[in-house]
């Protein structure tokens, strides 16, 4: 099996990776086309502005209500899952989550795990851990299967292989899947994947999935998907392990329909996904299929840090639709891999710092035009631009005691702070401003022609030889 070649990467490489994509016209065209497609599909699903706004308000209130009760709901979920026969496990870190999953695999002497789509399993790098333990971990979502064959990570949380053309996938299948001739016919390519993966669903010892919503009052795990691979993973193998973040809980079953409607329409512009799978127990006596064991692993991994702060808590409202990425001018130009994190785009910028610390992610918050598109399309109204401003403050102000975030002040620089303080002082004092602007107009020619990143694509900045006030005075 091809190992993943990408790991979480520190922000130091962010600029270089972004530049590599921006310099590649083919990739830029590919992302532009894909995002335009997804944006128009979403727009077509929400023709009624009033309905969209009222549904977003309802979605926001559902997420905020459930987050406000999160500790209680986790305990209620635990009680009801246990009553239903589903085994619950808690993990604070990715290593703990991997250890739990692998111990279940080892208990069953598992050799092959088939995986449905799960961004949390990407977050904990489960595939690496499984393969190190001698257990094959095979992605079965078609897009995830493609990126796994290519030795990559997903570049989008909903469309993992959105960066690849059918020709690239055709070459990949021809090279990596035994006995497959080159074809770039999409139906034929899907059939190749289907045939390979069907054998694996039948053989697998363990099926792993994510969870879109966990319902506390009924002890139910809900999964949204189109392909049926999620159902295969949760039904065909004898053991099903689900893994999810602690925030994906709703108290009541009736909270699901509005969130499901917002999710599928925002993500792929579908009225509803092909399958909505609601799992409430392992196989019961007399039933002829379904796993004999169902496990749920609840992962923290920095979410409790976001939860502790009232403003940052809004990050956890996310239902992982990916609409913010599709509408983000930065994501559209650099693609998902440039971020170097499991979650790219606007949601990645606000959730990754809690998972990886600001030391590794401080530059992500600055990679935003703050145009507000992400906040406008978010189906549950996460104020992403406002959170990006907060993260900039956390990353770039001087370190202090009792910070709200791990790595607070990681991007702090005395020089930069001094420059901004000087800038503020000039603009606060009319006398100082007059003096500086006079000096600028007289000595602007001294400005260097190389001004770093600015002059790589623009002409050098030089103050005008005459100030506006001088020109107005001359006019009388």
């Amino acid at each position, binding site marked *: 099996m091809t190992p993943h070649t990408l790991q979480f990467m520190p922000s130091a490489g962010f600029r270089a990776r972004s530049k590599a994509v921006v310099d590649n016209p083919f990739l830029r065209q590919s992302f532009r086309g894909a995002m335009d497609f*997804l944006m128009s599909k979403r727009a077509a699903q929400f023709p009624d502005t009033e309905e969209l706004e009222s*549904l977003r308000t*309802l979605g926001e*209130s*559902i997420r*905020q*209500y459930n987050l*406000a009760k*999160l*500790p209680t709901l*986790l305990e209620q979920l635990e009680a009801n899952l246990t009553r239903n026969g589903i085994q619950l496990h*808690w*993990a*604070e870190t990715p290593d703990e989550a991997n250890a739990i999953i692998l111990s279940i695999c080892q208990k069953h002497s598992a050799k092959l795990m088939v995986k449905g789509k799960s961004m949390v399993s990407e977050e904990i790098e489960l595939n690496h851990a499984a393969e190190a333990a001698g257990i094959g971990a095979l992605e079965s*979502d*078609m897009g995830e299967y493609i990126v796994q064959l290519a030795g990559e990570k997903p570049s989008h949380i909903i469309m*993992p*292989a959105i960066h*690849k053309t*059918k020709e690239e996938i055709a070459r990949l299948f021809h090279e990596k899947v035994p006995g497959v001739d080159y074809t770039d016919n*999409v139906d034929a*390519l*899907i*059939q190749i994947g289907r045939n390979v993966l069907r054998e694996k*669903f039948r053989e697998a010892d363990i099926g792993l999935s994510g969870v879109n919503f966990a319902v506390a*009052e*009924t002890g139910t795990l809900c999964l949204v998907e*189109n*392909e*049926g*691979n999620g*159902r*295969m993973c949760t039904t*065909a193998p004898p053991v099903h392990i689900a893994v999810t973040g602690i925030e994906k809980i709703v108290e009541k*079953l*009736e909270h*699901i*329909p*509005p969130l499901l*409607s917002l999710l599928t329409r925002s993500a*792929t512009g579908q*009225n*509803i996904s*092909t*399958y*909505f*799978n*609601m*799992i409430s127990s392992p196989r*019961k006596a007399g039933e*002829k*299929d*379904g796993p004999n064991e169902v496990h749920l692993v*609840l992962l*923290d991994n920095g979410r*409790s840090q976001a*939860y*502790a702060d*009232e403003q940052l*808590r809004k990050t956890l409202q996310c239902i992982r639709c990916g609409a913010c990425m599709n509408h983000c001018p930065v994501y559209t130009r650099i693609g998902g891999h440039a971020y170097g994190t499991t979650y790219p785009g606007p949601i990645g910028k606000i959730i990754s710092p809690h998972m990886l610390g600001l030391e590794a992610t401080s530059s992500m918050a600055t990679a935003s035009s703050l145009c507000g598109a992400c906040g406008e399309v978010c189906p549950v109204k996460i104020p992403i631009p406002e959170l990006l401003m907060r993260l900039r403050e956390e990353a770039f102000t001087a370190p202090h005691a009792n910070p709200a975030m791990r790595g607070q002040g990681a991007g702090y620089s005395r020089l930069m702070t001094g420059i901004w303080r000087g800038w503020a002082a000039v603009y606060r004092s009319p006398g100082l401003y007059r003096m500086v602007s006079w000096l600028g107009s007289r000595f602007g020619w001294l400005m260097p022609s190389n001004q770093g990143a600015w002059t790589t694509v623009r002409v050098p900045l030089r103050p005008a030889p005459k100030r506006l006030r001088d020109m107005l005075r001359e006019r009388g």
Partner: protein
Amino acid sequence: MSARDRILAKLKAANAAPAALPDVAGWYATHRVQEDAVAKTKRFRQCIELAHAETYAVSRGGWLQKLWEVLSAKQIGNLLVAPGTAHGARAQAELPALGIACPAYDQPIENWKEAMFRDTPAAFTSARAAIAETGTLILWPDANEPRLMSLVPPVHIVLLDTAHIYNTFYEAMRQEGWASGLPTNALLISGPSKTADIQQTLAYGAHGPKELVVLLIGDEQ
């Protein structure tokens, strides 16, 4: 202290202020119309056909004839049935005489997994209900009609009584009282399996059924 206790302690320490209970019922009451049976059936058919399913209106007594016609047109001579259900038993009693073999899903999957994956071209199940708004079938698999019937065979044929079509998902779960008891696995199905993961090109039959056929029993038809 366990990971559980540490996580819960951190969350409880946040002392999050309570938030108002969302008015889901109010939203549906003001944003979704209640349609009559004919309109609901029409909307359901439009939506599920847009999702690439085939639908056929059948009479309460005549569905078996249409089932046979569908199978014959698709040149399927082998249909997996659930003999513990009334419709499965009728299919098993009458279709073999018309040239369609009807093996029964009557033993645990472990005993015949390979045959299920390799030699089962089609399966026949019922739907408990449906949702007009999204063209969605509600399946409620149980000991008699197991989960894999609607997933593994390349063709899935479903019998739906149009008297059980709801306007919305919300209406279905509220009127049927799902919150007080869900089965092992409840399913919403809105078309055959599909994916657009390769260059945003829609393709059917990704992992589950390539074809979904719905036989709609309704007196009004």
